[in-house]
């Protein structure tokens, strides 16, 4: 296990690269999901309120 984590002495480069990828791509996915939720809830609520009024 330790040998695997060490990456033949390149641990720093390999794992930083992978974490950058995780942070950036995961960040976009997460941000999209949160935004989607926010927009969904507020837009549909407003549309339903409008419908009830009319």
């Amino acid at each position, binding site marked *: 296990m330790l040998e695997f984590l060490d990456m033949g002495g390149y641990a720093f480069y390999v794992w930083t690269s992978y974490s950058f990828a995780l942070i950036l791509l995961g*960040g976009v996915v997460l941000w999209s999901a949160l935004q989607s939720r926010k927009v969904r809830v507020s837009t*549909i609520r407003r549309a*339903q309120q409008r419908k009830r009024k009319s």
Partner: protein
Amino acid sequence: MYRLAGRLAPWFGGLCLLSLAVGLYLGLVVAPADYEQGDSYRIIYIHVPAAWMSMFTYVVMATSSAIFLIWRLKIADVVAEASAPIGAAFTAVALLTGSFWGKPMWGTWWIWDARLTSELLLLFLYLGYMALRGALDTPQGSARAAAILAVVGVVNIPIIHFSVEWWNTLHQPATITKLGKPSMHISMLRPLLLMALAFQLLYFHNLMVRMRTLILSRESRASWVAELNVETGN
């Protein structure tokens, strides 16, 4: 379209996670270390797919922008707008991982290599596109202005790449020996292709999610929106 995107998104997401898991396992654990580069070459499994996707995404963005300009198809503009952030993220990942690969291999964080430079300029194009979108507040105006920019950008990409390559050979007479790529062994190639597939699926998943958000906020006055369930959005 909204419903279709909603139905497709979990599939893309699930398949993405699956190929990601298999690709990472094969790439990080099963594939042997490179006899020249040791284990550092394993960065390739995110670097190369990210670089491919950065270009693929821009082509999608520019193509749908052109479709939007010619046929005024609103959905094409949604595709373009939804693609920009994930494309920029792919480009940034390709740049950063390239840098972390270059340090142990070439001994430097950054070289003005032709591909690196073009990739950096591609990032600027993405950022410019998103900044223009953000700056123009009327949705109608920003859509067409951004579409024009994307199309102008795609015409320029080959020219930029060619000029950078030319400039590079002029300034750096083959001092950096490029990683000679003898045909890759199958045990190394398989995870690479799987990771490429995973990134592709990640893009489609994200595209679907973002498209739903955009459609919903643009069509917020449409009557069908009121029929949707707040919790599931369907």
